[in-house]
């Protein structure tokens, strides 16, 4: 029969096509994972590597023969400062803190950054540093004979514990980390209670009326609104509308010499709280819905009121899930950049944010600032800041997982 011959002849090619496409489907999955790997590798690649340092003024010309600047005494350093610093800069630094009161390390920093002025002439990535060391050494000796080749870890403990400065070599993320933590605390403080309360009402109390259905649909729609729109909302309402409240002037708490005019940690935190509120509500609703009805009924049957049932039975039984959902939302808020730029994050802060009424910057904002600079050094600084940001998000998630497991152990019923 020719029909079955056709079938048999076709079968092989049909199976071959099946295998080909199966491979394609697998490849597209692999591609997504490869991208994630490339993303992480790039960040690590940029966060470490060789730099070529060139001093604007030769260190050896400053100190007497045979001595090194690093070990020089305070008198030597003072002499160098008296001689090398311009009178105007000298007065400015003297006003900041008199030279007589400064420590040796402090004086050394001034000599280094005000007079010697080390500059980064060239930077290399980690992979170049590991595999092309010979080429780097050759290039350096040819292009920068005075230069010094050192392996620099852009992400370091010093980077983590230093405040923001204008120079890529000395800058740190402490200001941004403090800003991020303060902002996120405000966000958690407002969004957790309101979000969980709203979820309880929608799941346990709300009847199936038109108004309640509208509230539910509205929450789904809010979850899809682009984050930058929340930024505009925060700008108009928290920064401008409630300026007296968010700048702290209503409480007489204006920071000395700082006019933040509503562009404060408080405004940023509240904006992010509104942003993640729909996500928290939706997640908490799912958690509450997963609690079995028999638990509620048995509680009501022994005479508990509705609220007693919710507080003593429904919430403890669902709290681990509620927490997981809420933490997911918060880690989204930590990485959020656009709404905070709109609300008015400061591009440069000379003082670390100290309270809710301070001007603010956050880690993603700094990453954005540094990435958009043209100089290569800032690219490495941005990579280091990304590592700090990802570490912060990871530790938050780890904390949530540990807490959740602990809560699960205490749980009386599943």
């Amino acid at each position, binding site marked *: 029969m020719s029909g079955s011959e056709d079938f048999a002849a076709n079968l092989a090619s*049909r199976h071959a*096509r*099946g295998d080909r*496409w*199966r491979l394609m*489907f*697998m490849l*597209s*999955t692999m591609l*997504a*994972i490869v991208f*994630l790997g*490339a*993303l992480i590798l*790039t*960040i690590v690649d*940029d966060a470490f590597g060789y730099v070529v340092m060139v001093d604007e003024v030769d260190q050896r010309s400053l100190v007497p023969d045979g001595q090194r600047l690093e070990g020089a005494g305070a008198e030597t350093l003072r002499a160098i400062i008296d001689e090398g610093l311009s009178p105007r800069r000298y007065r400015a630094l003297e006003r900041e803190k008199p030279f007589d009161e400064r420590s040796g390390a402090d004086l050394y920093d001034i000599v280094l950054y005000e007079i010697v002025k080390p500059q980064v002439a060239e930077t290399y990535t980690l992979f170049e540093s590991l595999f092309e060391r010979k080429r780097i050494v050759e290039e350096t000796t040819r292009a920068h004979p005075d230069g010094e080749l050192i392996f620099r870890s852009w992400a370091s403990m010093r980077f983590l514990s230093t405040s923001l400065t204008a120079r890529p070599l000395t800058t740190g993320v402490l200001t941004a980390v403090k800003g991020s933590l303060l902002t996120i605390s405000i966000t958690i403080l407002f969004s957790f209670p*309101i*979000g969980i*309360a*709203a979820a309880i*009402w929608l799941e346990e*109390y*709300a009847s199936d009326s038109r108004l309640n259905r509208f*509230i539910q649909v*509205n*929450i*789904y729609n809010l979850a*899809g*609104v*682009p984050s*930058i*729109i929340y930024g*505009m*909302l925060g*700008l108009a*309402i928290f920064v401008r509308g409630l300026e007296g409240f968010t700048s702290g002037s209503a409480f007489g708490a204006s920071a000395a010499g700082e006019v933040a005019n509503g562009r404060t940690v408080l405004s940023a935190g509240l904006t992010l709280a*509104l942003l993640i*509120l*729909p996500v928290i509500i939706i997640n908490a609703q799912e958690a509450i819905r997963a609690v079995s009805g028999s638990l509620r009924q048995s509680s009501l049957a022994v005479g508990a*009121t*509705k*609220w007693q049932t919710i507080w003593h039975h429904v919430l403890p039984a669902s709290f681990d899930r509620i927490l997981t959902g809420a933490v997911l939302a918060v*880690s*989204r808020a*930590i*990485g*959020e*950049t*656009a709404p905070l*730029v*709109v609300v008015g*994050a400061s591009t440069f802060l000379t003082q670390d944010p100290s309270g809710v009424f301070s001007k603010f910057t956050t880690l*993603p904002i700094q*990453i*954005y600032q540094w*990435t*958009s600079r043209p100089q290569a050094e800032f690219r490495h600084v941005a990579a280091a800041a990304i590592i700090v*940001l990802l570490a912060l*998000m990871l530790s938050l998630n780890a904390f949530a997982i540990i807490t959740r497991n602990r809560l699960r152990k205490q749980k009386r019923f599943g």
Partner: protein
Amino acid sequence: MKPVQTAMYPEETRGVLSFGKRSRPHENIIQAVLVFCAAVSILTTLGIIVVLGTESSAFFREVSLREFLTGRSWQPSIGEFGILPLVNATLMTSLAAMLVALPLGLGVAVYLAEYASERVRETLKPILEVLSGVPTVVYGYFALTVVTPALRNLFGQDSIEVYNTLSAGLVMGVLILPLVSSMCEDALSAVPRSLREAAYAMGATKLETSVMIIVPAAFSGIAAAFILGLSRAVGETMIVALAAGAGPKLTLNPLKAAETMTGHIVRISGGDISYDSMDYRSLFAIALVLFVTTLALNMVSRSIVKKYREVYE
């Protein structure tokens, strides 16, 4: 035997026992607080509408709607407010993103739903979720420092600008990929088993079953995923702000720099901007267009999802 007639409750002997509803003021207070918290979401929506509405209406008193929607140049300094260049750039980056996200996302979904074993699925899905958890500013950094140089090596340094919509769009596609793939997978898994079994019984191969039976059956779900992904791409900000370029330009060339709606809002509001200026108000007019577009896309997507759920359940 005589039944024992003793009072169970002390109230009973006093004659004040009632099984009627007792008034519990604190329960009512708690309920009122809960209602208020649920109302915060309504207030947020109202806030968005009022804020965008009032600032935009002040803007539209000076610029006609027609000029705004059809003008081909956006230069606030000389009073030209035509949104077309911004919309055009947004469409270009979003379409580039969807060209990456839809085929890849559908491929991933078919693989996970039809081919992968339970164990592989359980390991791969969290990895994909990590992709959507990475902050968008990190994607922007990646687009600018890796993808753009790679594209410039590929197409030649001169033919492609440092800031271009292609690079931003491609990276945005990867950002949206997990969303599209998980929605597509939900749609594929919702197709009843009987359809698969019927196809196998007719002698179809796995590929033929997947592509000719399951995917068409889940088409509405896939369409919903596409629309929601598009809405996410339109509203995405940091990638385009970093990699697509500054300065609104009307160009159809994806290798050139152009500024999207979101990119423009971020750049202008990040600088020093005085309230009550046309610059400031124009941002709200752009935001209004953005809000209406994404809201419409989200609603269409949700109504499609609702419809196909009803068909199969």
